[in-house]
């Protein structure tokens, strides 16, 4: 590992100042330290934010307010989360391993970096790690890569399960930086790779995630997260889907769908959602709607099977959501 300095911060303002001056936030460290060991990440200065007062999880009306430093484990197990937004719990528990979830934070989860194997190998070309060096995955191993939102620069999938659920639920996030505070939909945190895959999100230098807010809706009760992967746990999604349905008398009033494992960012399936509204909650409807998720999808040598798996996963997730008792 390359030497670095570590500064523990107890005050939000002080932490932001340190990060604005070039420091890098560290929370659970499960993404950052891993990548530092591989020397993919080389921060000279770390700002430890674990002592900041961002560990609260509260309910304001029916809205969940999840502090950025709440761990994945605590968030998943929280009674209010399970009651109001069970799909968030499900997406968290399906992620990583218990040990990792005990350390990893909600803020860190959203900012975790891609799992593209070439990104992690310094001797492979990777535009995300070394801008303009090329992309090893496009003509190499890309079975785990994206079919949506790709560019000729990068096709890596955004790996967060939580983000998929949050985006389906129209969650927003609050960040604070040197120029004050702002809030925006979680979906707007992410950026498509375009020609600048090394810029992954829309945070400004020094901006600190404060919390994530999840509004409630009638769909929240019938919501499921389906994660499809070759082993039963401790693996990133091959394809995943968060689906939420508001059904009245067998007719869908509103649907929410977002998918993981397929996009360069967590992918909201708005065309599919629209196609479901006002239709019966049956398999035929689900299948028709799921096909729309493939609009604009582009497969590579190794991931063509996701063109079949994506709609199949959406259909199953919708069925699971519908069948919530």
């Amino acid at each position, binding site marked *: *590992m*390359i*030497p670095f300095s570590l500064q523990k911060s107890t005050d939000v303002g002080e932490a932001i100042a340190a990060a604005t001056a070039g420091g890098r936030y560290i929370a659970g460290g499960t993404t950052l330290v891993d990548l530092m060991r591989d*020397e993919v990440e080389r921060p000279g200065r770390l700002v430890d934010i674990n002592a900041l007062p961002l560990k609260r999880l509260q309910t304001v009306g029916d809205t969940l307010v999840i502090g950025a430093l709440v761990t994945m484990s605590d968030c998943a197990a929280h009674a209010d989360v399970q009651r109001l937004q069970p799909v968030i719990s499900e997406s968290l528990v399906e992620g990583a391993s218990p040990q990792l979830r005990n350390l990893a934070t909600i803020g860190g989860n959203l900012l975790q970096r891609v*799992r593209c*194997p*070439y990104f*992690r*190998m*310094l*001797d*492979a070309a990777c535009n995300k790690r070394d801008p303009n060096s090329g992309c*090893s995955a496009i*003509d*190499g*191993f890309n*079975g785990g890569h994206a079919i949506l939102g790709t560019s000729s620069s990068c096709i890596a999938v955004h790996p967060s399960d939580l983000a998929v659920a949050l985006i389906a639920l129209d969650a927003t996030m609050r960040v604070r930086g040197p120029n004050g505070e702002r809030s925006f939909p979680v979906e707007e945190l992410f950026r498509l790779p375009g020609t600048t895959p090394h810029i992954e999100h829309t945070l400004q230098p020094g901006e600190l995630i404060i919390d994530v807010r999840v509004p409630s809706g009638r769909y929240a009760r019938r919501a499921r997260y*389906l994660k*499809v*992967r*070759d*082993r*039963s*746990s*401790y*693996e*990133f999604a*091959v*394809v995943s889907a968060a689906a939420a349905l508001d059904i009245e008398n067998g007719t869908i009033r509103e649907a929410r769908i977002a998918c993981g494992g397929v996009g360069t960012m967590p992918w909201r399936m708005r065309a599919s959602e629209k196609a479901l509204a006002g239709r019966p909650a049956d398999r035929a409807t689900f299948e028709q709607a799921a096909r729309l998720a493939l609009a604009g999808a582009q497969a590579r040598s190794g991931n063509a*099977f996701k063109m*079949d*798996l994506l709609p*199949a*996963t959406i*259909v*199953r997730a919708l069925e699971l959501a519908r069948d919530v008792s």
Partner: protein
Amino acid sequence: MNLQAIGKPLARVDGRAKVTGAAHYAAEFNQPNQAYAVIVSSSVGLGRIASIDTAAVARLPGVLAVVSHLNAPRLAYNPHKSGIDPPVGERLHVLQDDLVRFYGQPVAIVVADTLDRAECAAAALRVTYEARKPVVDPRDKQAQPMAPAAYGPVEADNVRGDPDAALAAAAVSVDVSTDIGRQNHHPMEPHATIATWNGEQLTLWSKSQYVANEQAEIAAVFGIPQQNVRVICPFIGGAFGTSLRTWPHVTLAAIASRQVGRPVKLVLTRRQMSYTTGHRPRTLQRMVIGATRDGRLTSIIHEGMGETSRYENFVESLTAGTDFMYSCPNVRTRYRLVPLDIGTPTYMRGPGESSGMYALETAMDELAYKLGMDPIELRRRNEPTIDEGLNVPFSSRSLMQCYAAGAERFGWAKRTPEPKSMRDGRLLIGMGTATATYPALQFPSSARARLLADGSAEIEVAASDMGPGTYTSMTQVAAEILGLPVGRVRFSLGNSDFPPAPPHGGSQTMAAVGSAIRAACLAVQNMLVERAIANPRSPMHNAGLDALEWVEGHLRRRGGISAEQSYAEIIAAGGGAPVEATVSVERDPEIAAKYSMHAFGAVFVEISVDPDVGLARVRRALGVYGAGRIVNPRLARSQCVGGMIGGIGMALMEHTSLDARDGRPVNAHMAEYLLPVNLDIPQLDVHFVDEVDPHVNPLGVKGLGEISLVGMAPAISNAVFHATGRRIHELPIRIEHLLKL
């Protein structure tokens, strides 16, 4: 034998040490003033090193040495091969020239006073190459198969009868081509060596399944006498075959230590575990079987091809099982190697048989479907009375008993044979079965037994325990023979000072080391008998040998009327010095030639397949084995469960992917090289049929380590077919194979 200790489900004698951390593994033998070495691995797959900028790195903080081919000592690399080294070719010589033979080959080591500094400096080392494109895929047009030059006990080509004519005349036939991906062992414990020189004496605390050979190999590499090298490895955190050979990192640790004049620790990174420490070779096979309408095999043609490196011919028993598994007058097996620009493969749990039997047992299942016959019935109809390949009887063979007991326990009768005919809710259910086999090997082993003044015993063998429970089972053998409580026997292993044992592989430790310990215990008892007979004050004075017997560690005259003498008493009478015997034992070559010796088993698997998203999951599995005497049923079960989990990995998950452009293992990472987790192994059941084999060895044991992995992959893939109606001839079977069912 009237058994007191053997056959008992004794808990691991080393269990407490393991769970409390008192058991020390290679990397934990930290030495005073120890430095740390980190390997710099080649980042190209073939070519030459053009330059190494050592000077820049040598100046970094804490760096003690940067060693590459430019400044490494010229090593002797004297000829040396043991049974686990490929018979043909020459091992990789590290840092001796500028050639890069495969991706990840060590090109330099950086030594520093702390691990962090060594890592940091290693990452900063700039190496440039003249690179060429390697050939790493056996299907590549440039890949050239060849007949292995030497293949040990089994020939590369074997023919009996006229398989082609018989196939042409067969009423029913199947023709199956399979592709099993490369696997890496990925044990929990990484390879690790701490090396220290004391003058010309080299001590290595090094992860090894074969310390005696590591001693000999390192002595040969450095051109020093064998007695100048000591290898110590009391505990192993899993190995599965990757620590049988002595790989280049051991040499590198010793070079580094000599270079800096300090003890040096070298631990491979997880990524490096996919480079130079062997792997299960990718295999391409074709299996053709012809049969009569009533299911009698008339022809088997098995052509198998395994990858190897350019510099060594790694051979394994890929086609060996086909020669004797079923009764069939016309059989041809053909084994070929494809040299590629990769590191040399090595034995991995169930080597040869697990890949070869996958092809045979898949084809047998397909044949059963073509015949409309139950797959167990098909095997029953072709059960041979002798080994038809060698034309000798089996020392014992309980395959049919295994199938019978297994079918009963598993509930095979509930299976409806039609593919896709069984469901649980929306899930497709499949049941599959397959035969498992592995040779009952026994290479020569020695052992030392020592009785102490207090009447307790010490046993020493340079054996290993990578998890099966060698410590415990060998303690049981010694306790049994000596008639002592297990608590009065102390067994030590993993030290090259001890009498040599064969490699801890090939499922032979129980047979080989157990037989040697038995013999050593008998020998030391005989020494005491002679003393007692010679001693005028002993109640056994002048007794005839046949008139005496040992009962629970006491010598007495047969009939039991006279006084007895304990070990302690006989030793005390001789002055109190410990009495020890060291013996070597090998299988009687005459008996070995008379019998075909193998363990057999039947494996049953039930899987579910999600028809929408292509997920295949094992729901339950049963392995039934006839493996001779079971020394410790608790350990044996654990051993088999481990093998079965390995089989689940082989069937559904494990696969090292190489990037064809530079031969790079792409998923050399535990997050991406998938191994089964607990959720993937819900219910594993193990059963042993009673099997008495009077020929294999005096203990009557056959070994379980390999056979328990062997039948799993074909049973799973047969179950996948039963569930889905889709044959997948590629391992591992993944989601992408099972979509759009």
